[in-house]
């Protein structure tokens, strides 16, 4: 990744114009040609540098629900518990963390009621207590990682 790539990623994390020639507009801002920007962006998508290029939706406004949940997986059952939890299509992210609460995951569902149903099902299949920590307030952040 060179300096131009880094500038492209940093700029596109701030947003992408909704207008008839958005790539040309961004390219001008970066001092590139439209084709150069398009080629480099396509390369990022081809080599998997980016998760996605497009819109990020507001889950709750879309009618969906999200929560953060955690379990204390006994070390000897860690792989088994990981398998059970990841098999739920409602589980969006799952991270191992260094704490007694050692598995943290995000549950995303179509309706708020399905959050509790998913938690109950995970508790039944794992035999573990699921700690449910839905957000009460979100404080605005810039959501940008400097490349």
């Amino acid at each position: 990744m060179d300096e131009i790539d880094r500038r492209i990623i940093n700029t596109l994390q701030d947003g992408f114009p909704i207008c008839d020639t958005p790539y040309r507009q961004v390219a001008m801002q970066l001092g590139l040609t439209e084709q150069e920007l398009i080629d480099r962006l396509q390369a990022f998508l081809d080599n998997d540098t980016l998760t996605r290029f497009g819109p990020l939706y507001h889950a709750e406004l879309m009618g969906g629900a999200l929560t953060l949940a955690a379990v204390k997986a006994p070390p000897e059952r860690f792989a088994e518990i990981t398998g059970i939890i990841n098999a739920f299509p409602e589980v969006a992210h799952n991270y191992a963390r260094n704490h007694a609460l050692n598995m943290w995951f995000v549950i995303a569902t179509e309706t708020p009621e399905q959050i509790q149903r998913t938690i109950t099902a995970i508790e039944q299949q794992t035999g573990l207590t699921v700690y449910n920590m839905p957000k009460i307030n979100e404080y605005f952040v810039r959501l940008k990682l400097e490349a």
Partner: protein
Amino acid sequence: MLDDRDRQLLEHVQQGLPVCPKPYAEIGAALAMSEAEVIERLTRLKQKGLIKRMGVIVKHQELGYRANAMIVWNVPDNLVKQLGGHISRFAFVTLCYQRPRQAEWPYNLYCMIHGKDRATVLAQLEQLNIACGLTGFDREILFSRRCFKQRGAIYQRESGFSRENRG
């Protein structure tokens, strides 16, 4: 709030924007909408906040962000808003939330810091503690050890908000 054509559009563009000179015209061509209609609808959906952001979503690991810490504090309820507002102004903070306390888990303020390595994250946390006056509160730092699963939440027109397992 949303009509059928909005839903059709949201479902289509979630897979990603076309990488070509006239991306909104291409989206329109696929949906039998004019380019102007696509631009007008997307602009409105963004203004209403249904589209939080348009742009790139990066893979942390690919950019060298290997240390990911969730820091939780137990702060008095009447200070959460003020402290959350202060914490979220630091550029290295990627998420900041108030969440409910649990039995055996008294923490109510959460933030995430993504950094190149642990030492950097811990130095940033120290900066945050001092600047926001957080040193006196109980806290825990949970570094991630492994990411097992990461996928975007997926929207489907028929059911509203849905999901898809991308592994």
